[in-house]
């Protein structure tokens, strides 16, 4: 009954078996005719559709075109969330009174699912680019604030005491102690933000948009083109994975640089 340790080779072997089993089962179900291909296209069909969409237009643009439209909105919304959320979180962590004023509002708003902002976003900023940006902002903003706040709050108090004792001016305390020690938390907040923002964008595009990969999927659904829907899912997953890996890399680079500094 004791937990059995397994070697890396075994683990790789089992892993590829798992993946092969999963895709194999999907393929067999799809080609056996038990499930109609409209319902469940085979992995090969999805791959074909994916490559076709790379240079054939569907719902007004090619897949890279839709992805570019989505990504542009995402970038704006995400940057806006980071630019407002991180300073707000840090200030809330440093100044108790601001924390006490903003926290109740923030807690009340936190329970509004980002997607529930869609109607107001459409009303205020239209369905073109402004509305979706607001939804991404709504999804990406809270983790930025919360993690910056945590980062600012959990600075080793001994460092601040030492700085105060040595008479360090407060702008230097902020720049050289508070900011650097909150960076790891901020970066992990950005990772969560990017994930939630990207997911909110997809949601927004499903509901209100005239371009973007979510819009392409809705059109695929309306045309009962399951392969298009699945190709869109693959594309969304790949971009999400790339975003996460990029931020993970940034996290690691920053950590390593600090390791050398100390």
């Amino acid at each position, binding site marked *: 009954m004791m937990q059995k340790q397994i070697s890396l080779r075994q683990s790789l072997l*089992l892993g590829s078996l798992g993946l092969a089993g999963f895709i194999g089962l999907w393929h067999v179900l799809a080609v056996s005719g038990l499930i109609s291909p409209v319902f469940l296209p085979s992995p090969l069909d999805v791959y074909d559709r994916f490559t076709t969409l790379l240079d054939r237009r569907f719902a007004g643009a090619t897949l890279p075109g839709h992805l570019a439209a989505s990504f542009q909105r995402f970038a704006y919304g995400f940057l806006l969330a980071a630019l407002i959320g991180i300073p707000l979180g840090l200030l809330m962590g440093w100044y108790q*009174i601001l924390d006490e004023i903003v926290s109740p*509002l923030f807690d009340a708003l936190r329970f509004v699912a980002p997607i*529930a902002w869609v109607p107001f976003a459409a009303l205020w900023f239209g369905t073109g680019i402004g509305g979706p940006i607001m939804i991404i902002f709504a999804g990406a903003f809270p983790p930025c604030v919360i993690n910056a706040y945590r980062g600012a709050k959990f600075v080793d108090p001994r460092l601040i005491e030492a700085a105060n004792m040595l008479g360090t001016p407060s702008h230097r305390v902020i720049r050289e102690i508070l900011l650097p020690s909150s960076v790891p938390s901020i970066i992990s907040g950005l990772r969560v933000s990017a994930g939630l923002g990207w997911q909110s964008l997809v949601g927004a595009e499903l509901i209100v948009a005239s371009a973007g990969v979510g819009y392409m999927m809705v059109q695929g659904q309306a045309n009962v083109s399951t392969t298009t829907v699945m190709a869109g899912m693959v594309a969304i997953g790949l971009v999400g994975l790339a975003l996460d890996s990029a931020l993970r890399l940034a996290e690691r680079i920053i950590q390593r640089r600090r390791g050398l500094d100390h």
Partner: protein
Amino acid sequence: MPRRISIGFATIFVVCIIWFLLTTGLGIIPSGRFPSPAETWSALIHVSGRGYGGGDLAMHVYNSLRLVVMGFLFAIATGVPLGLLMGWSRRAEAVINPIFLIIRPIPPLAWIPLAILWLGLGDAAKIMVIWFSAFVPSVINTYAGVRNIDRPVLEAAYMLGMPKFRFVSEVLVPGASPMIFTGLRLSLQASWTTLVAAELVGAFYGLGRVLNVAQQDLYPGMILVGMIAVAILGWGTTRLLGVAEAWALRWNTAALAAKG
């Protein structure tokens, strides 16, 4: 913290006054953009009395709540055991992890079109996407929870020859339970987001449907009522989960103290 609470109330009060002044008092924000308190109140009366978007407020709330609870419970019933299995058996982990790695980057909301293609606009499609969105955090956190159990505890149970069933129910589940509840809280949040999105995309009733119809009718008061209802339900279910957590972890004073 009485100071904190009084400042909190003061803030909310000031915001309500500013809301009133900007809309009704000074008329800076036109009512087509954001509703005044009076318009919001009348929208609330409208939806709870005559009904809006295919039913009254109680019916929409009931249906949204029902779908979230069902999807969430399915997710717990499938996700927690899978997480336990993956945390316990290195083989199961090795087989299942790669499948997770390729499915996980796809956000739950991206499953909505596929769910509609497969199951239509009814309840089944919504339960499927809610299940999916809540499933992933339950599995991952349960799995992490099992991995965090102190090794000596596992070894002691093994050495004392604990039978398998008791081992799972008295060592594995309790040991992982603080993390399991962390996962459940994330799952619950994801469930609400997904439900609202799925209902906005297409539904016959529910709060997302109210939001959708209100958006098409350009009815800001009703939009706000829908959002407030979603927020209250999200808050209420999270509180309930918190109560369940405190009860389930009542033996674990260290975990409770850590959560404050």
